């Protein structure tokens, strides 16, 4: 599945999925975190989404399981008991991956709106530099450099 298809099929579901996460977790921050985790997970497995006939029920099932895992983990942390202890390396990898993502997000948030818009078009809509140039009126070379510099800045920052 292309980024453009993902943006048109899955991103519009975000509000409904947030409501579901909020219904389950009863916390706006937790709901937002889990919806974000879900979308990152979906994005990482774009290729497999072509076989999904109905995106919304699919996302609801994934989100429900994520929320259950979140509650289980929180209960386990609170009680100090760990029933089914995953591999320590997996936890560490997950924590590092999450931290890396959050650092990268923080760096992107510091960018001006025009640059964020370009990155969105390039990464999510997967528009060519030429197409982005036509839409934004920006010079193609400027767009190329902007994307390279964002990548370099994130690489440096994490």
């Amino acid at each position: 599945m292309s980024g453009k298809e993902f943006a048109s099929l899955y991103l519009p579901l975000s509000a409904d999925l947030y409501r579901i996460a909020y219904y389950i977790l009863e916390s706006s921050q937790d709901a937002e975190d889990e919806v974000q985790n879900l979308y990152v997970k979906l994005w990482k497995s774009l290729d497999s989404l072509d076989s999904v006939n109905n995106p919304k029920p699919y996302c609801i099932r994934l989100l429900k399981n994520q929320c259950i895992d979140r509650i289980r983990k929180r209960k386990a942390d609170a009680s100090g008991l760990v029933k089914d202890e995953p591999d320590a390396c997996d936890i560490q990898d997950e924590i590092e991956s999450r931290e890396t993502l959050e650092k990268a997000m923080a760096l992107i948030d510091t960018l001006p709106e025009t640059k964020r818009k370009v990155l969105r078009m390039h990464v999510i809509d997967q528009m060519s530099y030429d197409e982005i140039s036509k839409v934004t009126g920006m010079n193609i070379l400027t767009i190329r450099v902007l994307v390279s510099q964002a990548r370099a800045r994130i690489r440096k920052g994490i």
Partner: protein
Amino acid sequence: MKKIITAAVSILLTFTLSAQEGRSIYNRYSEAENVSAVYISPAMFRIMGKLPEMNLSGNDVPFSSIVKSLNGFYLIESENSSINASLKADAEKMIRSGRYELLMEARDSGQTVHIYISGDEQTVDGLVMFVDEKDSVAFINIDGNMSRAKLEKLIADSASDTQ
């Protein structure tokens, strides 16, 4: 034998020192906050030289011929007011090292622009551009073996042709 050794060491050290100028400025400032930095290595220029003729913007400005004669490229754009002054001082120190002559200079609307080149009548082996605007500075250093005539034509060609 002693003279040969001394001369060889001097040449090598001079090469190292002159190649150091732009690089040391780049190394000093490239990691600072609110600084955009670009470095293009001699190796990358060699790869670029082997690519088919590229004309990304459909313009007929002869970039390719200049690009093939370049060795190194350093760019620092800073919006960090706490380092702008020292970056400017370091650039001026580099210029005063004696290799560079002023090619053009302008002051307008709170902005000053200086372009310096080094080399001889036929060839330019170094270019430094420094732009000092109200809240930002830009430092560009290019090393190579450029045709002076082509470079001056490229820079002096009207900007209106490129828009």
